[in-house]
């Protein structure tokens, strides 16, 4: 920490000086995300996949689908689980070994955004009630880290799940058997999109880069669905937000999220 402290302080001063003139280091507007490009089906062996590039941040999401025994209390619903990991190739600070609290948070926030939005109608993913359901696993691998992994994982996951093909299974003698070469479309009800904002001094910036991320005071991730409703929130960082700032952030998220959602829709 202390080695980087002087550099961080200089960086912060420079970023803040620019913000006072209404400018960001990379020339974006305060409420503007970096350019998002999504390539679908980059992993043909996965039932769905997407590579999302948000500026220089890059995430590959892969969807694997297999029959699962349901949890005892949700035998009438399929299973949907998202994870995330930062690969050691993504950044000099990324390490191998058990996940750090930051990575655990990233994975859980990614999962929450997809799950709480009700993106998929899970009741349509039951093979036999209480016995066998379709399990959808969306794993995100961060391959290049230039800040705001929350949103990059959100976009990659939504795009990968939205474009996946669900293999057909039939129950034979109480066991699910795959029917070769038959697929169904995923029962998508809405497209969740997260927008993360950094608070630096009094300024709020959509989609912070790694430099902005490293010196921010606080952050908020707001996930919205296709109807413009809020479906998940996560505040982080060592400062707080006023109620007015949070209302403003939700408006910024709905607005910036709508643009992102169009990009995801068009790539299908």
């Amino acid at each position, binding site marked *: 920490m202390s080695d980087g402290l002087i550099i961080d302080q200089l960086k912060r001063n420079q970023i803040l000086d620019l913000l006072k003139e209404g400018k960001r280091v990379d020339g974006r507007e305060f409420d503007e995300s970096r350019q998002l490009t999504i390539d679908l089906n980059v992993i043909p062996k996965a039932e769905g996949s997407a590579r999302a590039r948000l500026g220089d941040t890059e995430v590959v999401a892969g969807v694997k689908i297999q029959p699962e025994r349901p949890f005892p209390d949700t035998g009438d619903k399929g299973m949907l689980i998202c994870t995330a990991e930062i690969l050691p190739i993504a950044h000099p600070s990324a390490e191998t070994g058990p996940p750090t*609290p930051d990575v655990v*948070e990233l994975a*859980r926030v990614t999962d929450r955004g997809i799950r709480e939005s009700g993106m998929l109608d899970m009741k349509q993913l039951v093979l036999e009630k209480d016995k066998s359901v379709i399990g959808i696993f969306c794993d995100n691998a961060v391959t290049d880290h230039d800040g705001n992994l929350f949103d990059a994982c959100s976009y990659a996951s939504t795009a990968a799940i939205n474009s996946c093909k669900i293999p057909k299974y039939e129950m034979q003698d109480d066991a699910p058997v795959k029917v070769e070469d038959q697929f169904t479309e995923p029962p998508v009800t809405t497209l969740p999109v997260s927008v993360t904002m950094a608070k630096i001094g009094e300024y709020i910036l959509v989609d912070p880069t790694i430099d902005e991320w490293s010196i921010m005071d606080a952050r908020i991730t707001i996930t919205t669905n296709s109807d*413009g409703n*809020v*479906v998940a929130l*996560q505040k982080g960082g060592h400062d707080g937000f006023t109620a007015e700032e949070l209302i403003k952030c*939700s408006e910024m998220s709905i607005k910036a999220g709508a643009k992102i959602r169009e990009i995801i829709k068009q790539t299908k």
Partner: protein
Amino acid sequence: MGGRDTDIVLLDENGIRCDGRKVNETRKVTIKAGVLKNANGSAYIEFGDNKILVGVYGPRDVHPKHMSDTDTGILRCRYHMAPFSVGERKNPAPSRREVEISKVIKEALEPAVMLKEFPRTAVDVYMEVLQADGGTRCAALTGASVALADAGIPMRDLVAGCAAGKAADAVILDVNNEEDQAGQADLPIGYMPNLKKITLLQLDGILTPEEYKQCIEIGIDGCNQVYEIQKKALQDKFFANGEKQ
């Protein structure tokens, strides 16, 4: 918020909730400061049926040493649930959920604690959930601020915690376990009442922009109520005759 199927009536025709509360009412909160002998500061909080014990150690030397910072003290938090705190036994090893909650509570307390006063040291906050009944992160955060104040650590404000949410299509205050399982949304808030800053905010579930605003407003209301109980707990400890300073 899967809106898990249940027979419980979350809100009856008179607007009364499953545990007898009105929509804008918190559960009963009691806090006692200074309950542990060894810890530098401590608190015991009951938030409805949640029972949580918090101990604070520090400022003290940092181990492992490489974690120490020459410029500031560091805050370390552990939120942990006892295996017997919930219906089905919980594995005592820290789960991913507990790792995340520890992190968001740490980030909720940091704005309040004046860590720059203690460079090269650590303040450790241990929150042990003995019984859980929905809303443990807010209750643990509330107890942790009292324990930090009890330890005499300089603070800018206390952080009070209380959740808002949505159940049976109504915006409600202080979501209990049944409402968390079967309701539509849970939005925990941590709030510094004097600085008017929200330092913890999460959401599971779907809210319209209007409901989101209402949840934040009603949640801040709840935090203000909890804050009064926090202050009283500290007054009761430090002014034994209950006289206000």
